[in-house]
């Protein structure tokens, strides 16, 4: 990404919109090894600290009239608990801690990434792919452990006409194996695209410093666009975490009850 030509001075594009996703070592090292402390490590650590601050210290008081942090923690808990119970059913509630962990990590990482100068860890496919592969493997193993080879009936849609069933089974098999790909790329792609769009408009914002003629029109418009897209991104940050969690619940329901 860094090798792209990014210095068209007359257009005002002085930085590349994808530069914000570069993984850089924090402490002087030049090469990124698996053990190097990078900005991804820093922001993941901050995410975990923020979750601990909210869920452990925020809800510690257990007051009858909750404080603000306690009510946010209780709201998140109740929201995810109800979602797991509604989508996977009563026997899926044992997986509530896993889904709560996924949701809290993604939503806090997304919101921290919206801070100016912050790094969005969930914009990297490497991060989301690990989470999606963990969900995929867990669901597949769980399905075979709970149902034996009866789990394969998830591909055999018994409510469809008999002639259609082999074709549908093929489509179901393909869509089953595409799950980890779409599950991870949905989150990473949404985060990456939104932040890149903000940066594209941010590159047009200082145009008034270069040419006062067209800049007087473009600069207010781009600042307005950044504000609007930022508001959209706050919404997307929550919705994508919610979608990731609810799709995990849907996959779990398939593993627990494979019969359509």
């Amino acid at each position: 990404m860094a090798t792209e030509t990014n210095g068209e001075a007359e257009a005002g594009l002085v930085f590349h919109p994808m530069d914000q996703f570069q993984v850089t070592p924090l402490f002087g090292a030049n090469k990124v090894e698996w053990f190097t402390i990078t900005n991804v490590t820093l922001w993941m650590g901050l995410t975990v600290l923020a979750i601990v601050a909210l869920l452990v210290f925020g809800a510690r008081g257990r007051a009858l009239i909750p404080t603000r942090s306690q009510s946010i923690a209780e709201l998140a808990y109740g929201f995810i608990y109800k979602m797991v119970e509604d989508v996977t059913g009563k026997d899926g509630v044992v997986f509530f801690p896993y889904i709560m962990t996924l949701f809290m990590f993604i939503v806090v990482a997304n919101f921290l990434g919206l801070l100016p100068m912050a790094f969005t860890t969930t914009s990297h496919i490497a991060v989301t792919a690990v989470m999606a592969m963990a969900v995929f493997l867990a669901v597949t193993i769980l399905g075979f452990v709970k149902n034996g080879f009866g789990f394969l009936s998830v591909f055999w849609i018994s409510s469809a006409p008999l002639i259609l069933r082999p074709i549908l089974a093929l489509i179901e098999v393909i869509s089953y194996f595409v799950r980890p790909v779409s599950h991870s790329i949905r989150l990473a792609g949404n985060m990456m695209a939104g932040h890149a769009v903000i940066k594209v408009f941010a590159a047009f914002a200082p145009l008034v410093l270069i040419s006062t003629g067209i800049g007087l029109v473009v600069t207010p418009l781009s600042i307005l666009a950044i504000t609007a897209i930022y508001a959209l991104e706050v919404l997307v940050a929550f919705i994508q975490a919610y979608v990731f969690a609810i799709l995990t619940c849907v996959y779990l329901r398939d593993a627990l009850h494979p019969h359509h």
Partner: protein
Amino acid sequence: MTGDIVQMGAYIGAGLACTGMGGAAVGVGHVVGNFLSGALRNPSAAGGQTATMFIGIAFAEALGIFSFLVALLLMFAV
């Protein structure tokens, strides 16, 4: 053969891949529009189906994200 024409093809392909996002936009709009038209007919049942709507949005959107991924791969990886 210089790399210029290959790069030009990659950029044209990246631009063409972005038309897939329009399809995703149509799909998401279709899902939400139909949800809303159903929800306004029977508002008492709408609340329980919001999760289903989001699942539908997620599936429709995934294919648009794939085209975005293809564009990104053409821009930066090929």
